[in-house]
């Protein structure tokens, strides 16, 4: 609890939106960071300043503003590189979203390394953004997709995963941290991939702002995450890829900035990272992401992890005590996310009820329809924490859940 106070007293003041009143009377309890994180004042201010004082297109002109913009854009790349401990800044590609990052990998990895009949392994708990880009390959080129089972506790069934691998398996694309269970991937999965020469893409959308990310330790070939879930702006995504792979794979989109030389007959392509950044990139957004990373580093990644662990454990315990609530997954290996249902009450009702109490939670299938089917439910409610949440907010939430149940089940 002492730690909680150290991290919190001033931190909440960094996020102007947290002082908003819902329906004019209720303090906002923002438990939907897994959908998108709120932005600290410094990110909001820096975006303004960037447009007011430094903005121009990047990597093109020689004038002062072009230099100022380019420096900030490339500085953001270095910040991302350090943030996830990539070997080289050439391994950091800016995209418009994590979704675009996955689409980029699916398309270009196929082009270089796969052909009809080759196999991809996904898990049943992937987000739609880590399903559909691969479905496209299945529809277009006839690759085979296999799904790893999920255990009761919300983790990949390791034995089943291993049994899916054949000599035709080329890549596995898996969530680093489940957006439904909050469970972190077992490192055994990556070592199995390594052993069998299967490339691995980790979807880090839910982990980037909540765990210490070290892509070298993770031994992944690709790692993707989004700016907006890491306290930065929307409209910016990151793709990390091993330099040797990014070098070999073909470009994704064609356009300005990704070329070497263009004649009427042919074109050569730029070196990394420009090769994958066709068109004017999200310039201010990249800068904003860099500032958000600075902000997290200033708070301290370890502090964030400890604080969210404390919140998650406390919330899990408190919610588990409510006999009318079913939580999906178990208490160990859970980071900042709890999905649940109240018996006989649809998640929409729960969410609307909590909204009126000032509490923002997500309701629905969380873009994980195959997982919902696997769980035998239509939807769930989900609370998710950010570094600005407090133990007191968990208590408000738990009391509201009790009131919700009393309201609907008389």
């Amino acid at each position: 609890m002492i730690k909680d106070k150290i991290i919190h007293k001033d931190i909440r003041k960094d996020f102007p939106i947290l002082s908003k009143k819902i329906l004019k009377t209720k303090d906002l309890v923002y438990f939907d960071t897994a959908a998108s994180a709120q932005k600290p004042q410094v990110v909001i201010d820096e975006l303004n300043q960037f447009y007011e004082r430094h903005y121009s297109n990047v990597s093109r002109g020689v004038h002062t503003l072009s230099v100022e913009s380019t420096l900030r854009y490339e500085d953001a790349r270095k910040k991302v590189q350090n943030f996830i401990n990539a070997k080289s800044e050439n391994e950091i590609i800016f995209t418009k979203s994590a979704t675009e990052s996955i689409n980029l990998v699916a398309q270009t990895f196929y082009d270089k390394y796969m052909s009809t009949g080759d196999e991809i392994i996904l898990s049943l708990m992937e987000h739609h953004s880590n399903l559909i880009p691969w479905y496209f390959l299945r529809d277009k080129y006839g690759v085979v997709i296999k799904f790893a089972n999920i255990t009761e506790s919300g983790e990949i069934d390791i034995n089943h995963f291993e049994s899916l691998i054949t000599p035709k398996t080329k890549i596995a694309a898996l969530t680093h941290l489940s957006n439904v269970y909050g469970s972190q991937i077992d490192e055994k999965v990556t070592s199995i991939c390594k052993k069998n020469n299967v490339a691995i893409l980790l979807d880090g959308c839910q982990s980037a702002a909540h765990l210490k990310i070290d892509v070298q330790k993770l031994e992944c070939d690709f790692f993707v995450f989004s700016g907006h879930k890491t306290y930065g702006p929307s409209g910016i995504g990151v793709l990390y890829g091993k330099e040797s792979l990014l070098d070999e794979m073909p470009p994704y989109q064609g356009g300005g900035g990704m070329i070497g030389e263009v004649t009427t007959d042919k074109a050569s392509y730029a070196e990394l990272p420009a090769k994958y950044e066709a068109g004017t990139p999200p310039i201010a957004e990249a800068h904003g992401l860099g500032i958000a990373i600075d902000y997290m580093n200033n708070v301290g990644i370890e502090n964030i992890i400890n604080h969210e662990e404390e919140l998650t454990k406390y919330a899990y315990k408190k919610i588990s005590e409510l006999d009318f609530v079913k939580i999906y997954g178990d208490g160990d290996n859970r980071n900042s996310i709890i999905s649940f249902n109240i018996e006989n009450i649809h998640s929409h009702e729960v969410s609307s009820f909590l909204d009126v109490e000032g509490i923002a939670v997500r309701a629905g299938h969380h873009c994980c329809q195959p997982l919902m089917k696997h769980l035998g439910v239509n939807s769930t409610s989900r609370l998710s924490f950010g570094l600005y949440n407090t133990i007191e907010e968990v208590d408000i939430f738990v009391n509201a859940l009790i009131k919700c149940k009393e309201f609907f089940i008389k």
Partner: protein
Amino acid sequence: MNELLKELYQEIILDHGKEPRNFGECETHNKSAHGHNPLCGDKVSLTLFVDDDDIIKDIKFSGEGCAISVASASLMTEKLKGKKLSYAENMFKDFTDLVRGSEESLSTIDEDDSLYALKGVKDFPMRVKCATLAWHTFKNALKD
């Protein structure tokens, strides 16, 4: 208890949400449609039997969803049974207006109407889709 919630979850809504009327499939039907809200996963399947005079002789629905979407489907089937298609289409328009908060020009729904109970949805913009899912499915079924 909050007034907005009371307005949203009137007794009749909770009742129809829990025990939907006309649930299932018409024994004989000549029109049908499936409705789906891809954002939340709610589903409704609708079957109708429309006679030669364009009268809706039978209408049933099945599916799964929140109390608002189930109650709305249930109330809709009660309302539409026996109605002429042209009148039903006016009701569609009136209902979608009602739940979006414009009730000035309603011709087929008045304050005593059971459908009026869904008016509270207007204060929860994200729930409008729940309330209109069945009605849009009905509209699609007419194209069948």
